[in-house]
């Protein structure tokens, strides 16, 4: 049984007066993949963006309850969001490479954290590209603009960029929804490799994907956590009728 890395207890979230998350309590274990599924608008992105405090950027967003990372309160007074995000990286739905070279994209994180040493940066860039299975394709093109890569390559670049910061947790918000099946398969393979070293939380609309890559699955509905458990159990023997209906595609 592995340690709990992230735990939410009775987490409530409001955008203005609209409540988007209601009493979410779940624990995400270390070096495992936790998938979050549920129909559109049920609060999956909202929840995952709480974990690295991305919602700080949203005006009128209010949170109560507890969210713990390695036992420390993510929303506590002594938590520095910038420091937190070095340890909890995020890959977004739409690939968002910076309009600069491939090299500069990967080196961005280490550089903003003060690394100047060229050899060290070279090493990190190579390591990160290898770890994201992109080195063979772009190892010779490091000076090329990242914007010219294909969508799937851009997304793996964004993963490499995240790895370069050496986080402990990586959050994926529908990382494949803008990609073709082959690129999707590559990203899934990658996630299966990364879970040996990182704690992963992934939001997905793709049931097979959740079944393939995750160890645990959480089913959200209208801002509430309906069911959370081992992926196998959720997919084969769900407790709740609504979970079963959603998984079998009978609604939503």
């Amino acid at each position, binding site marked *: 049984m592995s340690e709990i890395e992230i735990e939410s207890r009775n987490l409530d979230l409001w955008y203005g007066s609209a409540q988007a998350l209601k009493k979410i309590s779940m624990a995400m274990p270390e070096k495992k993949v936790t998938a979050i599924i549920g129909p559109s608008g049920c609060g999956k992105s909202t929840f995952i963006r709480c974990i690295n405090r991305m919602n700080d950027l949203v005006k009128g967003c209010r949170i109560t309850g507890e969210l713990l990372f390695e036992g420390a309160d993510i929303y506590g007074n002594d938590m520095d969001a910038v420091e937190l*995000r070095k340890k909890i990286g*995020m890959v*977004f739905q739409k690939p968002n490479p*910076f*309009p600069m070279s491939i090299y500069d994209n990967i080196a961005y*994180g280490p550089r*903003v954290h003060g690394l100047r040493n060229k050899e060290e940066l070279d090493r990190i860039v190579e390591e990160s590209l290898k770890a994201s299975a992109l080195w063979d394709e772009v190892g010779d093109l490091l000076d090329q*603009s990242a*914007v010219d890569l294909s969508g799937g390559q851009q997304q793996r670049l964004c993963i490499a960029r995240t790895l370069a910061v050496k986080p402990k947790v990586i959050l994926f918000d529908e990382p494949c929804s803008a990609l073709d099946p082959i690129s999707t398969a590559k990203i899934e393979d990658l996630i299966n490799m990364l879970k040996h070293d990182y704690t992963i939380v992934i939001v997905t609309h793709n049931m097979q994907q959740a079944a393939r890559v995750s160890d645990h699955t959480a089913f959200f509905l209208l801002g509430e956590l309906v069911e959370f458990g081992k992926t196998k159990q959720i997919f084969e023997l769900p407790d709740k009728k609504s979970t079963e209906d959603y998984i079998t595609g009978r609604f939503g």
Partner: protein
Amino acid sequence: MTSLISPATSDKAAKVMLWVSASIAILTLLFILGYIVVQGLPVLTLSFLLESPRLSGAEGGILPAIVGTFCLMLVALLSAVPIGIGAAIYLAEYAPVGVVTRIISFGVECLAGIPSIVIGLFGYAFLVIYLGFGFSIISGGLALMFMILPWVVRVSEESLKAVPGGLREGSFALGATKWQTVSRVVLPSAVPSITTGVILGVGKAIGETAVIMFTAGSSLLMPTSFFDPVRALPYHLYILASEGISDPMAYGSSVVLLVMVLVINLAAVAIQRHYGRHHVRN
């Protein structure tokens, strides 16, 4: 209700009318350009560009006016760009959306609406007299800065706001601070369109005769410092024509001014082309 004119007929009529409007617009432009070029061509020689004027400009060239115009633009740019971009970054990235931002934006709008003759008069009272800069490149350049500042702020602010939010989030998610995000990702992404906008602004400012005639002076001598007076090209041609000194020389000066504006606009287009592909297609 039945219409007397069938949809097909009105469609055709609209097409014809729009075609006529477009033709009139283009023909007017071509006529003006052609007329000026034909009138100015006889005096356009290399010595016209490289010599100083003689007999109040009736003879000789216009080199001091060309140099003066360049210097005025340089001062205006070097002062307007840092201030304008700084203000735009504050408005686009930092200022909370609310009363203060709206007041600043409104102030910028108002500044943009002040007639150039009023800016010229203010430049005269404040820069030439009160600050004691006299009729000089500095006074003229700073007065032009007042003229283009609102434009620079607005163009920069819009360019910054057009940078996709995903880039900001991507930077924050890597543990970058706000200033790192703004200075390393957002601003560089916006630089091509800011540059294009600023250059177009300069193209407009170059012809603002009313501002510089009150502030830059009308000396026909070659300036040797930024505190020397100069006569900018548009003012020179105004004097040549209005005082009946030489019409051909006035048209020659006009052609040079037009070419300068054309070059500036082409530069803006070239920059846009060159950097366009770097922009994230989000």
